[in-house]
């Protein structure tokens, strides 16, 4: 039972991550492989202020979300001036560098040793320590994220995002400030990823840089693509499939040292297979093709 709850909590965290990336990559067409960096920044900010200032959970989540968003703006404003595939490279660079800072700035982040002993969250005097409690907490934020995404994509703002994805020049020609829209959606995505990081830090109560590598970023974009980019339920489907399948490896008796690699080979392979035969994923609508526009 504990195990099942653990899987459900993990799925919820990945739904927050992939739904927020879906806003950026699936709806706006900006593929980013820096999502694990924002996820990590959220986790580290929450952990550091919880450990050093003993501030309450809700304040921490607010701080982490805002800092994540601010960092998103710092990365987004310069990188969004360039073309799609170069944007991917800029986010790739940001991801590699964030990891190396988390790993090397030992006095501040604990380096490879990580930050142990993150306290249990207390919300309105209620201490959350059981798996059920965490599932309710993470599930709440997961639902909130999906609701925010739903509101965004159904709004005029969301329609502009889709227009940018389909034809940037046309969107600009109709008088939309394309750059501002892109930066704003990137900031929202980064902030939500940081919130997922806070959830993760409190749930595991120990964080180290290995949870926020390039591999993790590729995993999150794989969830978006395999689930279906540009669809509200795509990330939910993708997270459920990609988090559950590797757990099945455990049941067929694969030793855990091998299973970690096989798991990554599995989703890397799936990513290639889906890009080749079904780039819109299970339920998505965006195929990452821009035939009409290559500037």
């Amino acid at each position, binding site marked *: 039972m504990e195990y099942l709850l653990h899987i459900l909590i993990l799925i919820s965290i990945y739904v927050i991550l992939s739904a927020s990336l879906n806003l950026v990559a699936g709806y706006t067409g900006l*593929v980013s492989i820096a999502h694990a960096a924002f996820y990590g920044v959220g986790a580290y900010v929450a952990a550091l202020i919880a450990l050093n200032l003993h501030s309450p959970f809700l304040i921490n989540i607010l701080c982490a979300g805002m800092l994540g968003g601010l960092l998103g703006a710092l990365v987004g404003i310069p990188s969004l001036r360039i073309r799609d*595939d*170069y944007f991917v490279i800029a986010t*790739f660079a940001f991801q590699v560098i964030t990891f190396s*800072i988390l790993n090397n700035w030992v006095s501040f982040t604990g380096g490879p040793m990580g930050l142990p002993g993150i306290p249990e969250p207390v919300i309105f005097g209620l201490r959350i320590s059981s798996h059920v409690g965490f599932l309710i907490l993470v599930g709440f934020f997961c639902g909130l994220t999906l609701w925010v995404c739903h509101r965004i994509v159904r709004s005029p703002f969301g329609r502009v995002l889709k227009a940018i994805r389909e034809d940037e020049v046309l969107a600009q020609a109709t008088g939309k400030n394309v750059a501002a829209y892109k930066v704003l959606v990137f900031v929202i995505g980064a902030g939500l990823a940081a919130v997922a990081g806070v959830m993760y830090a409190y749930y595991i109560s120990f964080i180290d840089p290995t949870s926020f590598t390039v591999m993790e970023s590729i995993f999150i974009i794989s969830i978006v693509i395999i689930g279906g980019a540009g669809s509200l339920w795509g990330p939910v489907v993708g997270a459920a499939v990609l988090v559950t399948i590797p757990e099945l490896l455990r049941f067929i008796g694969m030793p855990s040292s091998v299973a970690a690699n096989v798991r990554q*080979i599995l989703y890397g392979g*799936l990513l*290639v297979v889906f890009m080749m035969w079904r*780039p819109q994923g299970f339920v998505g609508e965006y195929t990452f093709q821009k035939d009409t526009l290559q500037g």
Partner: protein
Amino acid sequence: MSSQVIVNAVVAASWYALIALGFSLTLRTNGLLNIAHAAVLALSGYVAFFLKTTVSLPLTAAVIFAVPITAGIGGLMEFAIFSPMRRRGARGLVLLLSSLGLYVVLQNILSLVFGDDLKILRSQRVVEGFNVAGARVTAIDAMALASAVALLVTFVLFVKITRGGRGSQAVSSDCELAAVSGVDVGRVRVVSLCIGSASVAVAGVFIALDTDLVPTMGLHPLLMGIVAALIGGSRSLLGPALGALFLAVVQHVVLWQLGAGWHEAVAFVVLLGFLLLRPEGLLGKKVRKSTV
């Protein structure tokens, strides 16, 4: 300035340049920002390691054989994956995302086969190196520099003189026009990914000799190569090499003044600066091709 700083920068520049060369060739001819080059880089080191320990070849032979084997695997990627995808109409982003998937698969195969622990390729003890104008230069450094220069010259000659090289230039400037003029576009692309992988593989072997092997060793060097290629101008022939020199000098001067730890941050700031102020790179032309 201390002469050691200059020597270190030039040595770093030589392997940045090799990677940048491979990356930008693949970008121009195959239309692909190939992240899987990071796995190619690690692969060449591991192939050399395998040839040396399991097949028990001498180190020099192992290193020399590792490069063509890795290049072949690079060509196979184009043949088996990217080319079928292109036939289905895949362009830039789709190819880039599949190269991410390929990187994940290859890197994990390396982990499965060789394990995640550090492997050592060099056979002799670390030697002090010789003294050049007050700076220490190891034999590996000297060889890295020599092969970078040699490869660069060969590469330019290849592109300018041979039919295949001119074919690759034609494909990169307009692949449809090249096809109707009788260039076998598919073949040119396979060859170009072979050569691109070979260039990255040479860098991989030198990095493996210098700092030992782990399956994830390719990411950081690839990032430096990409930054060098982009700031040098990935559309030009010699731009990536110039970008490599520029990046390495800036990094090592900052390293010398501020201390270690700022290495990657410097690369990122340089990249962002160029993307903002001179997106076409040092030697790039300001022409933007439009295929609407």
